[in-house]
């Protein structure tokens, strides 16, 4: 007589050490083998889009901080650009430079968390704390300028909330010099660690066409080996003036598009961000950072879709204006939301422990998934 068997359903989350927030994954497992992963979202839904409809355009900026709370400047940046495009205004050179430098600093800070938590998921807790130590430098640089450490409300429509602190340039340069050797240290400690490679190489392989079809972006897409970076392929602000490379996954340790590639792309991207900062930091022109801030933001009727390269991928704002001071509809195309969708595809046939590694390599922020 055949024994009746059924798959075990394991609820991972919403309270779980490595779902990076309140994500619930419903795993259908057979022993340790994962047959199906169903993500359940919404535990951190804070009605951003509904709130935005009740706000004036400039009042929405602090709310955007709370989307991807690890890269708040990037969120401000995207929103400001979208509204500026709707209004058709130009911002001063000085603002553009400061925005780019801030966004790149924020990108490094965000990648540090991503890399660190990816390592911590696999069991390496020490690199995680090293990276938080390094992130601290960036946070204090930004804090000195705009007073906040995480949710900055820094980039406003048409300008910035504060001009940079007099020490900003010196400290940023110091940070660049400090940070370069620590990338090498990180590589030696984690990237080329045999166990780490064993755990991430050939795991969760994402082919390019699947990645594009699922709308993946950012390091998740570039890890699959395609050079696609909005800073170069759809340039915004003044990114076209800087010289930088787009690191892509090459399958150095396994297959192109595996977890290790996605992880490694982030490390190499931090180097490129440093390059951009170093090119920009000496050329910040003089000027008033608030001169272009409109007194009253009342864009004409119309729609706009503006996308920027956030640390996690393509952050898009779709804004519908009905000609009043309130946005009629603000839709956020959150990179984590879209990148997370591919998880079910990636995890099939791997073990429970690999689900954690894959989730860590996609690097989601629940604030942005649930909005």
């Amino acid at each position, binding site marked *: 007589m055949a024994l009746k068997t059924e798959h*075990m359903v*394991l*609820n991972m989350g919403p309270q*779980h*050490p*490595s779902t990076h927030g309140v994500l619930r994954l419903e795993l259908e497992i057979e022993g*340790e083998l994962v047959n199906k992963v169903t993500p359940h979202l919404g535990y951190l839904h804070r009605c951003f889009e509904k709130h935005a409809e009740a706000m004036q355009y400039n009042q929405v900026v602090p709310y955007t901080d709370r989307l991807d709370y690890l890269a708040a400047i990037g969120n401000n940046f995207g929103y400001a650009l979208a509204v500026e495009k709707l209004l058709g205004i130009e911002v001063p050179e000085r603002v553009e430079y400061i925005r780019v430098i801030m966004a790149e600093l924020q990108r490094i800070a965000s990648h540090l968390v991503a890399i660190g938590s990816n*390592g*911590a*998921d*696999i*069991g*390496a*807790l*020490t690199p995680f*704390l*090293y990276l938080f*130590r390094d992130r601290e430098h960036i946070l204090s640089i930004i804090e000195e300028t705009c007073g906040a450490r995480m949710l900055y409300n820094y980039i406003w429509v048409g300008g910035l909330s504060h001009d940079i602190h007099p020490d900003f340039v010196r400290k940023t340069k110091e940070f660049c010099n400090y940070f370069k050797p620590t990338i090498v240290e990180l590589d030696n*400690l*984690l990237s080329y*660690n045999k*166990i*780490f490679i*064993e*755990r991430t190489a050939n795991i969760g392989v994402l082919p390019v066409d699947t990645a594009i079809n699922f709308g993946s972006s950012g390091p998740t897409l570039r890890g699959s080996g395609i050079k696609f970076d909005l800073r170069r392929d759809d340039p915004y602000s003044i990114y076209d003036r800087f010289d930088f490379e787009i690191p892509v996954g090459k399958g150095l340790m396994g297959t192109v598009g595996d977890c290790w590639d996605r992880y490694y792309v982030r490390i190499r991207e931090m180097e490129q961000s440093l390059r951009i900062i170093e090119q920009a930091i000496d050329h910040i022109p003089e000027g008033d950072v608030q001169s272009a801030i409109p007194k009253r933001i009342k864009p004409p009727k119309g729609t706009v879709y503006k996308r920027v390269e956030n640390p996690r991928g393509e952050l898009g704002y779709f804004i519908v204006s009905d000609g009043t001071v309130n946005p009629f509809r603000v839709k956020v195309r959150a990179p984590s939301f879209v990148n997370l969708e591919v998880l079910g595809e990636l995890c099939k046939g791997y*073990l*429970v*422990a*690999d689900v*954690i590694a894959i989730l860590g390599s996609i690097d989601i922020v629940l604030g942005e998934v649930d909005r």
Partner: protein
Amino acid sequence: MYQYFYDLTGNTILATLIVAVFPLVNVLIVALIGVYLERKVSAWIQDRVGPNRTGPFGLFQTVADFVKMLQKEDATAKDIDSKLYNIAPVLVFTGSFAAYAAIPFSSKLIGSEAEVGLFYVIAISSLVVGGILMAGWSSNNKYSLLGAMRSAAQIISYEIPTAIIVLSIVMLTGTLSLDKISNMQTAYFWNWNIFGGAEFGITKFLLIPFMVVGFIIIFISTLAEVNRTPFDIPEAESELVAGYFTEYCGMKWAMFMLSEYGNMFAVSAIVSILFFGGYHSPIGYLGNSLGIEWLIPFEQAFWFLAKGWLFILIQMWLRWTLPRLRVDQLMSLCWKYLIPYAFVNLIIIGVISLL
């Protein structure tokens, strides 16, 4: 030692109790210092400060934790199998505590001078697997169950290479008594088994490389047996929350903790007895040169604890440096690499000892 106290008190029960208290105190102290050290070592490694508020240098942090643990409510879930659930932590603790009975702390401080000490330690520490399986099954929690299954598979698998290496030492020394094995490596450190044992000759130099290999294998597999990183898969916190003891709290949880640190010291002790001369000093005794006879056992106890703690420190160092393996990689490491190498090592050591 039992004989000594029996002569002193003339009562078997009293003597047994007194003898049992020593290892118990040791386990508690090991756990107390071990937890503190783990925190401090991890803090130093991670560029942090670590506990520094409770007492000087945070020394009382663990004491405070234990007091907190004692006061905690014993919260249990509704649908647990309460019999097994309550027995499990006791069984796990018994398993690791009972091993201390045969471990010689010094020539005068041995719970039982059993002839089959080594065999006894390996056998009794397998009790832990039963306890872990019970804990995992009775908790009625899927994470606990997965953790328990992983743990059972892991501990049982890694006992094989451990046993084979132990066998090769037994072949060489011709005894199962831990005390006798220690005594064979007396005087200076070049008499330790890792340096080929006390017998001087060509075989000693032939043995050294294979002894080193044997030490590495047994160190790795004992690391796996006590569930330390990179083999902490049963309690992998980022995957299984806390593994088989997810549902435990308060003192029951503390029992698991105690037995973990107890086990750490026990395996370190076994490794140091087998390869590093046990309680014998590497550089001779102060008591001998000064002519103070009674000082020697104390010196021996010091060296034994020092060796044990050294291995614990290495375990901690590894834990805070390395990521964690996956369950299938762990198994393939054991079955594809450690066991074959251990067998080859056993045969070669056997041939050499015949020379």
